[in-house]
């Protein structure tokens, strides 16, 4: 584990980026998405979630391992992305 650099985005910053990706994909108002929003309840199926992860990989320059399956809410994705940014920097 490396120490956070100045360019490491905060959890909140990551959450904002991910919420915007979800809103854009599902064509819903970003204001309706909160950290505890359940992805299924927002209308995402498993493929949609793969797509969000794919876009997050591009945006944050990370690689999400294949076994990350316990993703239910926005904050789950946010935490995963944050952890991977720190470990893969």
């Amino acid at each position, binding site marked *: 584990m490396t120490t956070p650099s100045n360019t490491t985005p905060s959890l909140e910053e990551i959450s904002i980026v991910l919420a915007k990706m979800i809103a*854009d*994909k*599902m*064509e819903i108002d970003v204001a309706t998405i909160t950290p505890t929003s359940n992805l299924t309840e927002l*209308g995402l199926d498993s*493929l*949609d979630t*793969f*797509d969000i992860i*794919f876009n997050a*990989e591009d945006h944050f320059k990370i690689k999400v391992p294949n076994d990350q399956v316990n993703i239910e809410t926005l904050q789950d994705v946010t935490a995963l992305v944050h952890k991977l940014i720190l470990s893969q920097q």
Partner: protein
Amino acid sequence: MVNAHKRVVVTGMGVVSPIGNGLAELSKQVFAGLSGIKKIDAPFVEQLSCKLAAQANFDPAAYFSKHTYSMLDRTSQMALHTSIEAVKHAGLSVNEALQPRMGVYLGTGMGGASSVEEGYVRLFKDGASRLKPFTVLMSMNNAAASAIALEFQITGPNQTFSTACSSSAVAIGEAARLIRHGYADVMLAGGAEALLTFGTIKAWEALRTLADEDQVDVSRSCKPFSLNRSGLVLGEGAAMLVLESLEHAQARGATIYAELAGYGSANDSGHITQPSVKGQLATMQAALSDANLPPQAIEYINAHGTGTVMNDATETNAIKQVFGEYAYKLSVSSTKGAHGHLMGAAGALEAVITLLALNSNTLPPTINLAQPDPACDLNYVPNTAKTLPSLDCVMSNSFAFGGTGAALIFKKLSLK
């Protein structure tokens, strides 16, 4: 149809084509002899030696949510849109009772060609290490038929036919057989193709079957049956029909546009690209036999008429062998000079045009027919549409690389 269990009728149509989306626009342009062939609007145009294409003016965002269209290849987007239009045109309510009795048969030559190519560009050119999660689902040939079933929640037979340029004519014919033999009451049948990608066009260039650019007017580059014809022009689009058993259509008071009276299919078994008189005449004879009609019943043939030297002469010869002296009395036209060659969607688009002809008693012209070819000496309705006092029975031909031919015969419904 011989041994008919149920008669099959056409009750709805939807179309996206290089000469108009929707029946009204297509009808206006095809009978006016207007061409949709242009210099291709694509970033790779200058890298092509043949810069022509017949592109459809189709923006998926006008019809679907981003969530829907971003998971579908252009082929599937057009197939889904035209299916929705066809169901609307048919005034069909796809309810719970109908869903298990309704299916989809769709023809496509290359399915999700642009999604495949996009993936290859990412991997091989851009050096990406991974592909988009939807790549497989967008590329697979049955994606379009699947999207249609999902849209309407229909659980009847769902199959995809890929016989190159005859794919959608085969899909329509086979769907009619399902209804005839009682396996379904209603079928969405037709085809879609969107292969105007850099790689696909390059592959076609290498086959040396594409038309030369007309030096005066590029829109006139495809010249079926003309002595100076030089090849085909690639096109894209989709067309879907609602086929229905006559009793089902009558029970719901549907408008019936025609009876699909016969379908025949045969294979050239000669050469992978060269058409054979043997295969083409077997195709047309099979359709006549299926419809239990003599050759003289056919008043108009919408020919495959690609505009290649080989196809047009072969098809002319095959028509002469099937129809004898009567070949000189009936009318034959190719509309590919206007809309280009839609490959897997060609048979379905031309079936729709043939149905428009039948319903308006008007024959669409073979455009750009300026120089008669002694090898092509039938009545091709040159350059100007022709309105007849009546029109009762018409045929649409489709032939293909790989040799699979399909002929469809449509008749005005007679309840005598």
